[in-house]
């Protein structure tokens, strides 16, 4: 191999340094406001820090023992799993179904896709206030329909009922989060080689068979990566439940993010709250690693 001329070498080095320099702001920001907070949270979880007293001390794993000896924790953990599982399942199924529907060429297809993407940017607070209005026990239109249909007692709202409240927030969450999977599936469907379909048609495979044996397997990786990303978002998503039910009635929609918030700003025990978020964090960390390595985004 030829030795590179010295001049070129130093040019290349300078070039690399400048490239790195362009990334310095983001590096500094992420170190200071993402990595440091995460590490700080780890430390907090081993202390008895509180928002109402100035001093705090190291207490080892006391907070964790306290969490696991709390009988209600299991219930809230289970709520988190139900909320996450059904929200993610719902948005993936709905997202894929709509993608299949709009992937076919049709008049006004682009306009329709644009319209169906709107929930992606609707503020959670908007969805929350509308749902509280339409589910209002006295004047809400959906409550009215349900009452008329005899599904709900007079002057009763699904949001005030322990069983259904979780289903309502899950449905609301699916409403606001299906556009992302829809978009990704739509792109994935377009990228499937048309020739495979043609070959299948020639072989006489029906629509259902083609979907089952060609489309679905082609979407396998997309689905896995999407599911993991959405699990991370959903399991840690606080806003909607907080604004719609506040975790109630009687804790039936309380999940870990609500619990973290309550421990922090309800009872001011931030050491304890940090420990709960560590438990959630460790579970999510596994998902993040999986997502980062499997998404293929860091490849050139």
């Amino acid at each position, binding site marked *: 191999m030829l030795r590179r001329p010295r001049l070129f070498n130093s040019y290349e080095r300078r070039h690399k340094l400048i490239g790195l320099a*362009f*990334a310095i702001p983001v590096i500094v920001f992420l170190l200071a*406001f993402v990595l440091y*907070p995460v590490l700080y949270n780890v430390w907090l979880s081993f202390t008895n820090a509180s928002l109402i007293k100035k001093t705090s001390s190291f207490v080892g794993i006391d907070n964790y023992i306290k969490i696991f000896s709390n009988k209600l924790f299991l219930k809230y953990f289970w709520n988190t799993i139900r909320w996450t599982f059904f929200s993610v399942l719902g948005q993936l199924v709905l997202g894929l179904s709509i993608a299949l529907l709009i992937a*076919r060429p049709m008049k006004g297809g682009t306009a*329709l896709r644009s319209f169906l993407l709107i929930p992606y940017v609707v503020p959670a*607070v908007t969805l929350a*206030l509308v749902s509280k209005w*339409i589910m209002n026990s006295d*004047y809400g239109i959906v409550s009215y329909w349900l009452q008329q249909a005899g599904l709900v007692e007079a002057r009763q709202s699904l949001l005030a009922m322990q069983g259904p409240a979780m289903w309502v927030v899950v449905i609301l969450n699916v409403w606001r989060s299906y556009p992302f999977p829809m978009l990704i599936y739509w792109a994935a469907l377009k990228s499937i080689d048309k020739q495979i379909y043609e070959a299948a048609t020639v072989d006489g495979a029906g629509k259902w068979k083609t979907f089952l044996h060609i489309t679905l397997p082609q979407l396998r990786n997309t689905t896995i990566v999407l599911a993991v990303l959405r699990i991370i978002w959903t399991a840690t998503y606080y806003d909607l439940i907080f604004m719609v039910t506040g975790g109630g009635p009687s804790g039936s929609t309380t999940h870990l993010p609500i619990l973290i918030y309550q421990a922090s700003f309800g009872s001011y025990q931030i050491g304890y709250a940090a420990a709960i978020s560590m438990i959630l964090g460790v579970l999510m960390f596994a998902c993040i690693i999986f997502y980062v390595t499997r998404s293929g985004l860091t490849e050139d």
Partner: protein
Amino acid sequence: MEKSMKTTKIKTGIVVTILIVFLVVIVGFPLAWMALSSLKPGVELFTIPPKIMPQNWSLEWYIQAFSNPNVIRYFLNSLLIASVVMVVDMLIGTLTAYSLTRFHYKGRKLILISVLAAYCVPPIMLMLPLYKIVNAFGMPESHIGVIIAHLTVTLPFSVWLLVSFFKKLPKEINEAAVMDGASEMQVFLKVELPLCVSGVLSTGIMAFIMSWNEFLLSSVLISKESMKTLTVGLANYISSTHIDWGIIMALGTITTIPVVILFALVQKYFVEGMTAGAVKG
């Protein structure tokens, strides 16, 4: 044979149309209902059975909402915060995306991975530490704290979207300019940036929308009425014991409209960027 194929085609057409109408209703109903409710006078808001269309259109709730000086403050606060977040995101974001797509240095991959990992770090985990940090720096109740918090959410997203725009540019342009003796900064400002303007702007607007919509971190960092953002102010309205539904519907409508309009403007680029490199299967 041909005839039966034609009828199945028509049948599928009908089924597809029904499904689409159903979807459009499901997606549109909550938003339409909010807007319609906000235009109904007080009496009509509470009729049983509820009527879909207002009988007497009225702007009274909007007038009432804006006669509260705090509401105007909420608007200005949200506008200010989201604008700053947008500009900072575009500045740092483009520099980073340029660096990550045009230079090959050690640690480049590590930065790429860190940005992606940061994108996955949820706000609920950052809530407490950011609260403590902002207070420790003597910035409680400040918009700077909220801006920093919003950047933790939007910056990784922006970088990620921008990288997908920069990746699409042919590298040859860059190399040709370097051969002509242009410096890296010149190449960035005069060659690459102009080619990416639409991508950069739409990323900025997406960051604006995310910041405008953000609730959790803003609510934790700000408790002073006059400093609150729109989402936080609105959320307080719905959790109060006496609820003025008309005012809330009016506020909800004006909170949502700007976001939907902005999104309509940049959607084309957003879809392009997201589907180019969002989730590769």
